[in-house]
């Protein structure tokens, strides 16, 4: 019974299933409408859908030139972003794919003219990256970037040694000399490989973030969190394997309280879409962690006993601010007032190269019937009911970001942005 309903509900899983059978234009239209109808609405779901779609776009794009490929991805990306401008991860993934294509193109060009020179370039500018993680791909764009534009050197290059890594998976393409045809084939193949790595990263980002959990959560702490973010849950679960602490969970009432209730009590619904691509996990309470569910209004009252606030987010902006579920801002503010540290856990894919000037444009408004139920329908005509879905939280309210690359101060985020996105793609 659940399997049939799963196939019928339009969403991420149905989209991914149809991606193989449908022609590419249909799939693009399909994703656009899914985004528009908010049938794919979580950051990760949107990012995954975008990455998969771009992978098939690239693989089906029968072009020999990188500029045409870029153009094609740009046009698809523009349409996707126009479909849901506030879902910034869509743009982030598109930008990363574009950066991937540009890097590969530049690599190839270099290989043609100065093969030996490019090989002597430092390959791992980020020394702290775990080599086992599939993040090595990030090193490629940086290395290539530096070779073309020397003024934009990373600070890490000061410390890194100029020794090439022979085991890099994507290097053989550039090493093999060949004709022009061979290059374009390799270009596409490598871009596809890069996209696959992005997809892998999306799948593993929570695990990577949770590796830092034990550094930040200690025994007998009282942790406050808000809404049901899988990243936060996994972070806490990892800490729960070693430590005993208490979690206070604010329910984020009108928009996400049902999922939050399900998360804290462990009674997830069978038809939950998130379940399809995230492994079934035990709730925190199964690990012996005391979870206290409170209404959002009680946050201030309890904040004086809280040791740490751990928040999930919708997207992170380059200035260190973040767009997160409505209610996050007062929680962060209350934490600031009580001198409680605020930790935001977020995958790097949520980091967006956007500097916000008009905060209101980032905020999306949701269903008013969640605030005033059907029984109070008479009131709706007389009064103005507001249900914002997101809050903008300024950077000064956040003490620490934990991404899959480690912990960062909010002021450092701009640097990660410039590591991940190329300047020419920021506003494409």
């Amino acid at each position, binding site marked *: 019974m659940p399997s049939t309903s799963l196939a019928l509900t339009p969403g991420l899983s149905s989209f991914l299933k149809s991606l193989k059978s449908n022609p590419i234009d249909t799939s693009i239209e399909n994703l656009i409408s899914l985004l528009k109808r908010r049938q794919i609405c979580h950051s990760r779901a949107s990012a995954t859908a975008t990455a998969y779609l771009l992978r098939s776009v690239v693989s089906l794009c029968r072009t020999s030139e990188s500029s045409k490929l870029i153009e094609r991805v740009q046009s698809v990306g523009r349409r996707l972003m126009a479909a849901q401008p506030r879902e910034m991860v869509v743009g982030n993934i598109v930008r990363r794919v574009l950066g991937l294509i540009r890097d590969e193109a530049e690599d190839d060009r270099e290989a043609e003219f100065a093969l030996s020179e490019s090989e002597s370039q430092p390959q791992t500018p980020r020394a702290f990256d775990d080599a086992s993680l599939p993040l090595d791909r990030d090193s490629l764009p940086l290395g290539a970037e530096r070779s073309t534009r020397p003024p934009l050197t990373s600070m890490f290059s000061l410390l890194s040694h100029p020794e090439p890594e022979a085991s890099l998976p994507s290097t053989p393409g550039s090493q093999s000399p060949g004709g022009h045809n061979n290059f374009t084939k390799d270009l596409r193949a490598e871009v596809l490989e890069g996209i696959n790595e992005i997809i892998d990263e999306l799948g593993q980002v929570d695990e990577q973030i949770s590796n830092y959990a034990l550094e930040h959560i200690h025994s007998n702490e009282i942790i406050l969190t808000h809404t049901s973010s899988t990243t936060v849950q996994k972070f806490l679960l990892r800490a729960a394997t070693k430590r005993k602490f208490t979690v206070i969970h604010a329910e984020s009432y009108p928009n996400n309280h049902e999922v939050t209730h399900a998360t804290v009590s462990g009674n997830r619904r069978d038809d939950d879409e998130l379940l399809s691509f995230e492994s079934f996990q035990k709730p925190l309470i199964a690990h012996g962690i005391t979870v206290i569910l409170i209404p959002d*209004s009680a946050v201030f009252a309890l904040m004086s006993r809280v040791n740490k606030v751990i928040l999930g987010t919708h997207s992170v902006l380059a200035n260190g601010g973040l767009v997160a579920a409505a209610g996050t801002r007062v929680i962060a503010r209350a934490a600031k007032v009580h001198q409680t540290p605020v930790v935001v856990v977020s995958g790097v894919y949520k980091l967006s190269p956007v500097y916000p000037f008009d905060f209101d444009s980032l905020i999306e408004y949701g269903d008013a019937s969640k605030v005033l139920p059907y029984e109070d329908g008479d*009131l709706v005509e007389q009064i103005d009911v507001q249900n914002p879905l997101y809050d903008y939280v300024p950077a000064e309210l956040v003490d620490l970001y934990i991404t899959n690359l480690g912990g960062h101060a909010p002021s450092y985020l701009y640097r990660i942005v410039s590591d991940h996105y190329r300047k020419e793609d920021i506003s494409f």
Partner: protein
Amino acid sequence: MKQHQRRRRLGLRRSVGRLWHHFFFRESTLSPHHATQGPARRPSTTAIESIKMADSVDPALTSPSTTAPSQASPNPVAENSPSQSLPIRDSKSAKQPAQSEKGTSKPKDAPAASSTGGDGASDKPLTPAQLKAKAKAEKAARRAKEKADRDGGAVAAGGSAPDAGQSRPPNTPKKDAASGGASQKGPKGAPPRRGSGPVTQASTAVEPKKKKEDKSVSVFSHLYGQQRRTTVNGAAKEVHPAVLALGLQLRDYVVCGSSARCVATLLAFKRVIESYTTPLGTSLARHLTTHLSHQISYLSTCRPLAVSQGNAIRALKLAIAGIDPSTPESSAKATLCDFIDNFIREKITVADQVIAGSAVEKIENGDVIVTFAGSNIVKQTLLQAHKEGKRFRVSIIDSRPLFEGKSLARVLANAGLDVQYSLVHAISHAIKDATKVFLGAHGMTSNGRLYSRVGTALVAMSAKERAGGVEVPVIVCCETIKFSDRVALDSIVVNEIADADELVPANPPQQVTGLPDPAAFTAPPVEPKKGGKGASAAPTQDSSASARTPSPSPLANWKDTPHLQLLNIMYDVTPAEYVDMVITEMGSLPPSAVPIVHRMSTNI
């Protein structure tokens, strides 16, 4: 010894008088407005004045059962009070059809109200004996049946243990009003059954303890007293029916809000005093106090007493103690009733008018006023400002689980104000274009902090720390009767824990539209008598939850889930630095003036 006591009291009074003088002169320089108005108003309690008062008291009260009979004797104006307050009551009940506890006990209040009202119409001591006998028989049969049911259901129940205690209320609406009324008076009218009352109570009280683990949040463990009373069973025999009814109304938030609870309590006590006769061998001054303390302890088991209730009771006890033992009983009772009327008038009715009057002056054209939940005094202020032709916008922030702002939004919207409504998650959006924040209070602590509905502190904090850097003035409207001598640093020291089951989202919306519950079709063999017992239905629901597509709520059996706790606190404490001004009937003060004013006003 008695003389000694009296002398001491006199001495106290004298010093109080001195304090008052001291205060009055100082205050009069602060606020000439009130200094001139106060004395002018007090003597002129004309008929028109009293009409006004009845008008303003009753909506606050929202309990026709207690107002109608007690007010009927002094002035006939109160005749319209039930019709006035009924719509509010209805809207309240419509507001929360969701809460299971409320839904079940609601019908119970209705018969109680009608029965006490009927008592007031006929003469009260003469409750028909045959009616009582009939009710007694019915009740005994019902109780036997319930006991059998509960024994069957409670074993499986576990999680819905408190509900089992409430399995009685759903039955009462089926009986006629008489039996409902009798069940209210059961402990009083039927002494033999009093023995059985505590027994059933004890059995229901034991059930929650059978759980494997304590569900109380450890930080708040000092606040978990006994569970709130679920029935009138086991109430002391001295408890007056009006107080019994009031207790249930307080418990179910039918009478809600600090001043409304205070007024309702005083009016109920007035009825207690009216029907009181001093037993032989004691004096009124000594015995009435103990008689009242029975009522008070009953009320506090229904819901912990509000600050205002405590202050009012203290004043009443002082008045009782001040009565000369030689005074004849009838005149002493009349004095006390007058005292109560005056107290309500001075401390709440007129105080509200004065506060609203001076708060209205703070509202300017074009203002955007943010308020939190549903404060009666803020409502009065906004309505009066609108009446005076000021053009402003109101943004109401509301919160789970009580949704008190909804009724405020309804009243304001009906009056033609421009109202915006959002929940607590949208505070930062609502505060963005605010120009003033008006807050009601449950109490003010002696260190100047505001003790009010949980979430108030978030609103005040957001107003003070807005992104633009411009602070929004936070104005608290509060009668001095809500001032307390307690101090609180944070919301954990002083608070009230409400039933955590209120946080569990209630039934799915298909019940609202009147469609038959799908479970009724899927699981009739499992549960043949579902309609009869709302409470015993809960355990079987869990078994059929997997079969049903929209499962009730993930939290439905949270009490059986280990390590999961729900916390439903009622109040929080707003730091004094977030409050710019406290508007009281004695003028507009900074929060630091609370202890001074409290000393003045409680000692008068």
